[in-house]
Structures are given as structure tokens and as C-alpha cells.
């Protein structure tokens, strides 16, 4: 019972805002550009070209005003205007190549990140899925990456170049007239200060908005998955009310950011115009003193927007960059979570040990203790038993006695057990999950079916996947009969987790899937539970097959299954209270006998 820390925290109090950019995250992100460095280098090398063109433009304007217009010199006006036009075209071409090469590289990198994240998610331990609603993971893979992608297309890269151009232009203006430029530079800190304050608030609200959005998505996803429950309980209005709290929270956070965003945009624009006034005011004195020309003054005014526009764009792009950084932080969750690869590959097996794992020999539990949460109650409190090749063990006990937990430990769904579990004499925690998986196949009461053909759902594209192999597996569990009656037979495509089959049929498919895996040990988890008695008979026959040539560990509710077992382990509260065969346990007249008695003394056939 691990509560979802993220959701709980974010639901009640505002998440503490991370003020600084996490450079580690950014560095990892940039690492994904490595395969596309050719494009990146081409793009970057065009920056100086862009910068030179950007300086030439105002310089030519000043020149035209001072040399042509003020002295009323019409000769050469056309020529210089053509040069100006040529500079413009050159600038356009350089910009286009720069933008395309870098932005396409970013798209490639995002594709790679998405694939990498998905692959990580596929290898996350069960714990991750216990604490993270699916909608959150989906948001990471879609909306968050979209935010980053958007940030690139909306000119994150051109912004970097624009900043360089601003600096170059300032240097150029300093060179032309340092006093006039100083007036501009005085405004600099003011702009910086205003941007800083508003930017910080913006980032706050964006982060908050994203958290609420993600919660809302999670809730939406749950309600849609459980739509039948919602409707059958007449709970439509109740869930609508709850969902509205998320949408309202999102709206509030966004409206706040609207104010900051708008103010930022307008203030910078206002400052640009005010500086024009200031320049003219100061310039008037300089012109009186004849230290600058009119051309320079007009040139300055016309360049102002080229200096301030990047800052203004900077602020309008800020929104998407904020989103991108919030998204970076979110994506980081996927990278911070350890995958099972990493946690199990740490200790390598020696060659000899790998040889030992050739085929299943024995499984030994020794004083195994386990709890789901570090401070939770113990679910297993010192369980010891041994399963040898070919033998069959039945786990019996009331719900919550720890039966399912034993199977979960075997599949390495959960790993942090105490005591020792040895597979062929090797500690289970040292064996990679994939290796363990080859030995066990799970017949579960919970069925999941892909929206693919029946053949795929049984064979799952495993090495041996061929029609006969699939059919054999289906025949093994007596599922072939109903499959043959379906339109398209084995090519019949399932939909909505097998919604176009009956529950029992779906279970038979999942059953066939377990058989098809060809594992040596079958773990049976109440697989017969919701199947009617005739089908149950069929499956019982299939289980007899399984019992003949496989090793079995079963959570059994039916006496017939229990009786086929070599050893019965009776669990209660995480402890094995009794063990033995059906006969010896009955003779003992203890817990098990009592249990069986209760089974037996059911409703009287009146």
C-alpha cells in the first residue's frame, strides 16, 4: 500500500518550486544531439554569418542617411539600397539554413528521447506502476515532450542566436557612439530586473499548472477506464465535480501566468519606445554639439527594436521555455527511476553459475520475510520450503495470507526480500529478471489481452511463434474449439482487453499464452476461478497435463487441484502454519483439516 507521494503532496499544498535549472538534466538532453552533430555544427557555424549581416544592415542605413539623404545626394542612392537588399537576402538564407538544421536535429533528438523513455518505462519495476497512475506516464511521453518540441519550434535556438546578435549590435553601437550606447545600457539592468521577477513567477505558475494538469489527466483516465462503474453507481455528477476541481485549478494557475506574461510583453515594448525618446533627447544635445550625425541618430532609433526585439521575443518565448524546463523536470522522473536492468545486472553471474541456470532444478525459500513498504506490516514472516524439479506445491490459506506475495517474489515483481530464495542454488536477487522469467510462467486471474490477433495474444511473437505452436497451446487448454468458431479464427483481432470475447474465453486465451511460453515451472494463481464448471473441467484436464510434465506451484482454491500436489503449504498471516500431503494434514486434524471441513460443510443439499 504505497501511497502516491507525488499526487498527494501536489493535491494539498503547492509544490515547492525549484528555482534553479538542473544542468545535469539539460546536459543529458544535449547528449541526445550527438548523433546529429553534423547538422548542429552546420547550424552553429552560420551564427557568425547571421551576426555580420545583422550589423551590416543598420550600418548601411546610417550610411545612406548621412551620405545620401542629408547632403541630398541622389547619385549612389540606388546602389546602396541594392546592397542593403542583398544583405537582407543573405541574412534570410543564413537564417533559414541555421534554423532548419538545428530544429530538425532537435526533432530527431526528441524522437530518440521518446523511444528511450518508453523503453525505460517498459523496464520499470512494479513499484513504479503501483505509485504512478498511467495518465502521468502518458503525459511524460506525450505532452511533456510536446512542450519541449514546441519550445524548439518556437525558436529556442533562434533565441540563442538573437542574444548573440544583440551583443554584437551593442558592440557596434558602442563603436559608433559610446555615449549614446551608454544610455541604452542604463536601461539594461532595469529590463533584466523586471524580467527576472516576472520570469520567476511565471515558472512557478507553470509548474503548478502542469502538476494540476497531470492530476486531472490521471483522473480522467481512471474515470474512462472505470466508466461502467461510474455509470452503474450513478456517480456521473460526483466525478464531474471532482474533475472540475482540477480544471479550475489549472485555469487559476494559467490565468495568473497570463497576467505576468502580458505585463512582461508590454513593459519591454514600452521601454523600447521610451528609450527612443531618451535617445532623441540626449541626441539633440549631441547634435547641437555636432558630435553625432542625424544618420547615426535615426540609425540608432531603427536599431533599437533589433536590440529590444530579442528581449521581447525572449519574454514571449519564455512561456514555452518555462514549459520546456518544467517538462525537463518531469521527464527527469523517468530517468531517476531505476530500471530493473540496472538493479539486477549489478552483480554478474559467473559462467559456471550461468551453466547452472540451464534448466530448472530446485527452488528453495529459506526464512523469507517481506513487506511492501519499508515501514509497512510484514506480509511474509519467515517462510521456508523447497520446490524440486517435477514436484507440485499447493499454497492454501485465506485471502491476504501471503500466497500471492510468494508468486510476486518469484517473478521478481518485488525484490527487496529478506532471507534467502535460491534458484538452482543461486540467490534469486543475483539472477537477472529476464533469466528468472524463462523458468516461470504465470497463469493469473487477471487477464490482459492486446488489441491484436488471437495468434499474437497466445504466441506473443516469441521465438517459437508459428501457427502450429499457437494451435498446440490453444488445444492444450481446450480453447481451440471456440477459436475455430470465431470469424478469422486465430486471426480474429481482439479489442478492448478482449471485450469482444466472454470473460471465460479471454481467460482461456491467457491460459494458452502461459502454456505457449514453454516454461518449466507453471505458477497457477486461481486461474480456474471465474470459469464455469464445464470449462473448469476442461482446464482441469489441461492442468493434469501440466501436472504430468511440469513443475507447479499453485494458489489453489479447489480441492482437486490441492490433492494433485505433492506438498501443501498452509499459510496464515505470512507464516506456514502446516505442511504435508492432503492425507497427513487431514490426519493431523489441524488448521488445514478445519479449512477443508468448512469447505465441506457448505450449504446442505436440502
Amino acid at each position: 500500500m504505497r501511497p502516491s507521494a507525488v499526487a498527494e503532496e501536489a493535491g494539498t499544498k503547492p509544490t515547492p518550486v525549484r528555482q534553479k535549472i538542473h544542468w545535469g538534466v539539460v546536459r543529458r538532453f544535449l547528449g541526445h544531439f550527438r548523433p546529429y552533430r553534423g547538422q548542429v555544427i552546420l547550424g552553429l557555424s552560420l551564427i557568425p554569418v547571421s551576426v555580420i549581416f545583422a550589423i551590416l544592415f543598420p550600418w548601411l542605413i546610417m550610411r545612406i542617411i548621412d551620405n545620401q539623404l542629408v547632403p541630398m545626394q541622389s547619385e549612389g542612392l540606388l546602389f546602396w539600397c541594392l546592397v542593403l537588399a542583398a544583405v537582407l537576402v543573405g541574412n534570410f538564407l543564413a537564417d533559414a539554413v541555421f534554423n532548419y538544421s538545428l530544429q530538425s536535429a532537435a526533432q530527431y533528438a526528441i524522437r530518440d528521447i521518446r523511444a528511450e523513455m518508453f523503453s525505460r518505462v517498459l523496464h520499470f519495476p512494479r513499484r513504479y506502476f503501483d505509485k504512478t497512475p498511467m495518465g502521468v506516464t502518458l503525459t511524460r511521453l506525450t505532452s511533456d515532450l510536446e512542450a519541449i518540441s514546441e519550445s524548439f519550434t518556437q525558436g529556442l535556438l533562434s533565441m540563442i542566436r538573437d542574444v548573440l546578435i544583440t551583443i554584437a549590435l551593442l558592440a557596434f553601437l558602442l563603436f559608433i557612439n559610446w555615449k549614446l550606447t551608454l544610455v541604452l545600457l542604463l536601461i539594461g539592468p532595469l529590463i533584466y530586473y523586471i524580467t527576472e521577477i516576472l520570469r520567476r513567477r511565471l515558472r512557478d505558475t507553470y509548474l503548478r499548472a502542469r502538476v494540476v494538469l497531470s492530476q486531472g489527466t490521471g483522473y480522467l483516465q481512471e474515470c474512462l477506464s472505470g466508466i461502467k462503474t461510474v455509470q452503474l453507481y450513478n456517480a456521473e455528477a460526483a466525478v464531474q465535480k471532482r474533475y472540475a476541481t482540477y480544471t479550475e485549478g489549472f485555469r487559476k494557475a494559467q490565468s495568473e501566468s497570463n497576467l505576468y506574461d502580458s505585463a512582461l510583453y508590454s513593459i519591454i515594448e514600452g521601454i523600447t519606445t521610451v528609450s527612443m525618446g531618451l535617445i532623441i533627447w540626449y541626441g539633440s544635445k549631441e547634435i547641437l554639439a555636432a558630435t553625432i550625425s542625424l544618420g547615426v541618430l535615426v540609425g540608432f532609433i531603427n536599431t533599437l527594436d533589433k536590440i529590444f526585439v530579442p528581449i521581447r521575443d525572449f519574454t514571449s518565448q519564455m512561456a514555452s521555455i518555462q514549459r520546456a524546463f518544467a517538462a525537463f523536470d518531469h521527464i527527469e522522473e523517468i530517468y531517476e527511476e531505476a530500471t530493473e536492468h540496472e538493479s539486477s545486472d549489478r552483480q554478474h553471474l559467473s559462467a559456471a553459475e550461468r551453466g547452472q541456470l540451464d534448466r530448472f532444478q530446485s527452488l528453495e525459500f529459506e526464512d523469507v520475510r517481506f513487506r511492501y513498504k519499508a515501514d509497512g506490516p510484514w506480509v511474509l514472516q519467515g517462510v521456508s520450503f523447497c520446490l524440486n524439479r517435477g514436484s507440485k506445491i499447493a499454497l492454501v490459506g485465506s485471502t491476504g495470507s501471503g500466497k500471492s506475495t510468494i508468486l510476486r517474489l518469484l517473478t521478481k515483481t518485488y525484490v527487496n526480500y529478506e532471507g534467502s530464495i535460491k534458484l538452482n542454488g543461486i540467490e534469486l536477487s543475483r539472477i537477472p529478471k529476464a533469466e528468472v522469467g524463462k523458468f516461470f510462467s504465470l497463469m493469473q486471474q487477471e487477464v490482459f489481452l492486446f488489441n491484436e490477433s488471437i495468434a499474437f495474444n497466445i504466441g506473443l511473437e516469441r521465438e517459437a511463434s508459428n501457427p502450429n505452436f499457437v494451435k498446440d497451446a490453444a488445444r492444450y487448454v481446450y480453447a481451440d474449439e471456440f477459436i475455430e468458431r470465431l470469424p478469422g479464427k486465430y486471426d480474429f483481432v481482439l479489442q478492448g482487453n478482449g471485450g469482444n470475447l466472454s470473460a471465460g474465453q479471454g481467460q482461456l486465451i491467457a491460459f494458452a499464452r502461459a502454456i505457449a511460453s514453454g516454461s518449466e515451472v507453471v505458477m497457477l494463481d486461481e486461474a480456474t476461478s471465474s470459469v464455469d464448471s464445464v470449462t473448469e473441467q476442461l482446464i482441469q484436464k489441461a492442468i493434469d497435463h501440466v501436472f504430468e510434465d511440469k513443475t507447479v506451484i499453485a494458489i489453489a482454491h479447489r480441492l482437486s487441484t490441492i490433492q494433485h500436489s505433492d506438498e501443501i503449504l498452509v499459510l496464515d498471516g505470512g507464516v506456514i502454519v502446516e505442511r504435508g500431503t492432503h492425507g497427513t494434514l487431514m490426519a493431523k486434524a489441524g488448521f488445514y483439516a478445519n479449512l477443508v471441513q468448512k469447505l465441506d460443510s457448505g450449504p446442505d443439499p436440502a
Partner: protein
Amino acid sequence: MTATARESNARFFFRYILHHKQAYGWGIVFIFLTNWLAVSIPLYLGESIDLLSSDALGQQQEALMRSIGAVVLFALLMVVTRTVSRVLFFNPGRSIERELKDDAFAKLTRMQPAFYREHETGTLISIVNNDINGVRALAGIVMLQVFNILFALSLTPLKMYQISPSLTLYCIFPVLITFAIAHKGIAFMRRMMRLRMVELQEMSSTTVGFLSGIEVIKSNRIQGWAERAFDRENDKILDRSLRLTLVRTVVLPIIAYTDRLLKVLILAVGGAYLIQAQLTLGDLTALLSYAALLAMPFISLGMVFSAWQTGIVSLESMRRILDQPEHHRDKVHLPPEKREGLFSHHLRVEDLSYTYPGSDTPALSNISFEIKPGQMVGVLGKVGSGKTTLVNCLNSYLEVAPGSIFIDGVDITTLSRQDLRSAVRTITQDPFLFSDTVTENIQFGADELADPLPLEQALHQSDMLDEVRQFPEQESTLVGEKGILLSGGQKQRLSLCRGLYTPCKLMVLDNVLSAVDNETERFLLDQIFNHSRSVATLIISHRATVLEKVDTILVLNAGRIVARGSHAQLLQSSEEYRHTWRLQQHDNGVVA
């Protein structure tokens, strides 16, 4: 959705816009003020340049200061008007986003199974989450820019024309040409973006599928297959993004170069005029400023067009949810007292048959039976016999033909589903639990229901109390997504607890004890039979032992009732019943 009856996109959109007409109205006033201030400023700039270039600069210091003062004052005023106008447009945009999301969600909660068969959850989520952004932009930035452009494009040329009519006309041409090029580019981009959105939705659906089946993928080690399937979708999106990038980086920037192009033109042509003394340097400066003001709406226009197109696509997408017709029966609700009185006589099934859409064999044929207050009726049948179909007909999860099911003589197809379900409570065999606390899950849907049990007692009755006590935070413990950390039996019992929490009229238990062990089953049956607060109970099972104590058992086979009667009667009369019962007795009774 017929073409004639369908509301146009514009009408649909303006219905939402009108909710905020005041904000938008003031927004328009402020955006006009902003534009008016913007076109006034270059005039004062030009005036001051003329003063500077005049020979008598020394005497005109005061006039110069006045012009500069006007520039600064107007600039400061503009900061205010611009901020206010943006907020006045963006906030309603956000509110409309919220309204649309809430409406879409409300609609989704009322949609019937047929809808969910056609639409995958991932796609629906993507519509509500991603497509909404396009609509919000439409209600916010697009609305703002439409008026901004409208005012800018009328005021700027007007002012320019006052300075130099011919130069204004010269400027119009390049503006129109770049606009035409950009327009083509945007049309292409719009097409690409729409396709990209569809591809993104597909990827969401695929991902949801894989995440739901993560345990199967992991335990069968087919991550490689899942990754390949994911990569295919991922590559499609990349391909689309690259095409979009090409247009964005090569075609669309042409618009952004318009203002500089205009400046070159103004310098060349205006320079010639100046030399001919038709213009002053101040005029030229003002015109150069206007170049930026004239080009800006076109830059925005490009943005507005693309946002508009995306917005319409998104709106269409949203309407796939919002325009879903609702069944007329659900629009009329019973008055409370009538609703209270439902199921005071009986629920009668008369000759009910049901065939799933697309199937040719009926799932249920000629079913007739009756259940009265105070009765317990059992339905026995094997997998595929139509048990769950019957349940889903009774609670109108499936749509039955009129004249098949009556409650107190009223055809249930004339009742709203909400009314019907207030009388018929179904506890399904595949319980769904929310990622929420145990308490919240139990109280789910019980907000307005009277007389709940003390939580503890409800937990006890469903044999969950001891286990919940063991949970780290007892009743406040969160159960994982879909209650993942609970065993199947625990989930069923929690769902049973949810059903027992408030009294109900007809309680339908659809094979709800399938995943609990025998001992627990016995206890729960006792609770259901002897301590339930339901007026009547219909209990469905594939196990005869569960049903031994009910008043009447209906034996269902291949969608037909093949036998009916009490346990004792059926043992006598029905071969099938006897057979099933023996088999299951054998199961439980080897020891004896």
C-alpha cells in the same frame, strides 16, 4: 450527426465566447486604444527628428521636449492598455478551455458502451488534453490578434497615407506578395499539423494499451516487440515534424523579413522623394517606424491563420465528443418522490431477447421472470451462457428492445438510466477501484444517498475490516491504480463493501465472489443473505453452492432459461442442475 442539424463551428464557438462577452468587449476597447497610441508615437518621433534637423534647433528646445514628452507618455500608457487588453482576452480563453473540458468530461461520463467500443480511451484523453490547446488559442490569442490586426491594418496605412500616398501604395505590394507566399505555406503547415495531431493520438492509444498490459509484456519479455510498435508511431511523428520544420524555417520567416524589406523600399523611394524635397527626414523616420507597424500585423496574421486552422481542427476534434447525441430517455428524469417509489411492486422480465450488434446469434432468448421486494433470485450458468448480458440488460448498460423489462409496470426503456440505476444497483465481477483512499472508494457515488453504514461495519460485512486495519494508513490508505496492490479477492470484497455501504432496492451481484476463497465466500454469502439492507437481491454465479439458499434459481444455458425453481426442486427436475451441482460438490466434498 447529420449535416443539416449540425451547428456550424463558428456558432458552436461563439456560444462559448458569449459567456464572456463583457471581458471581450472591454478587451476590444483596450486593443483599440493600444493601436491608436502605437500609430501616434511615430508622428511625434518624426516631429522631433524634424526639429533636430532644422537649423533653428537651439530655439525650439521647448517644442522638442514636448514631442519627446508625448512619446514617453504614450509609451507608458501603452504599457497599461496592452497589458490590460491581453489579460482581457487571455483569461476568458482559459475559462473557455475549462468550460469545454468540463463539458467534454460530463459528456464522456454519460456515453454508452457503444461509444467506448468505437473510441479508445487514449484517443479521448488526447482530445481532452491536447486538442483543447488549439481551441484555447482560438478563444485567447486568435481573438486578440483578430482585433489587433483589424485596428493595426486600418490605422497604420491611414497614417502613412497622410504622409505620402504613393509611398504607402509602394509598400502595399511587397506586403501582399509575402503574405500570399506565407499563406500557401501556412495551408500546407495546417495540413501537416492536423495529421500530426492524429498521429499523436494514435501513439497515445498505443501507449495506454502497452501500459495497461505492462505486466504481461514484462513477464513474457516482449518489450522488444512493444518498442518496435512504439518506434513505428514515433518515427511517423518525426517524419511529420520534419516537414513542418521545413515550412516553419524556410517559408514562414519570409513574413518576418517584410518589415526590413519595407525599410529598404522606404529608404530607396522615400530617399528619392526627400532629395526632391517632397518629404522631410522626420517624415522618413516616421515612415520607417510605420514599416514595422505595418509588417507586424502580417507576422501576426500568419500566426493567427495557423492558430485558427489548428483551432478549427481541434474544435472539430472536441466536437467528436461534445456533439455525441445523448439518448432522449436520459434527458427526462422522474420527480424525486416517484424515483423513491420505484420497485415497490416488482421487476418483470418478459420474453427478453438480446443480440449483440454485429452478431447473428442471440446472447439471450425469450427470458421471462419476475423479482419482487423481499425476494432473492439466483441465476446459474456457465461461462458464455448470458449471465452478465442479462445483468447488463437489467441495468440498461445494454439497450434492450422496448416491452421486455418492466419495473412496477413501467417499461425501463422509458426511464432515464439514472432513475433506473437508483433502483437497480449492480456490483460487477470486474470491480474498478480508483487510485484513491479505501474510504473514497467505498463512498464512491454515495454522496447523495441516505443512511450509510458506519464505515467499519460496512468493512466488516465485506470481510475487509481486519485487512484494512493492517494497511499502513487504515481506511485512508491509497489503493494503487485500479487497486493494483490488492488481490483479486480483496478488490471484489472492497467493491462489495461499496455496494453494501448504503441501502438499495434491487441489488444485483454479478459473480462477485469468483476470486475469494471458500471460507470467505461462506461468510460473505451469510452477510448478503442475512444482513443486507437491499429490498431484493439477484445473485448471479456459475457455482451452484452459492445459490442453494435463494428463493428461486434460474438455470441459464446458451441464453435460455432451461430450468427454474428452488434448489430442492431443481435437484429433482433438472438434469443439468444436478450435474453441475454434483461436479461442484465433488470439488468441495472429496474429503467426505
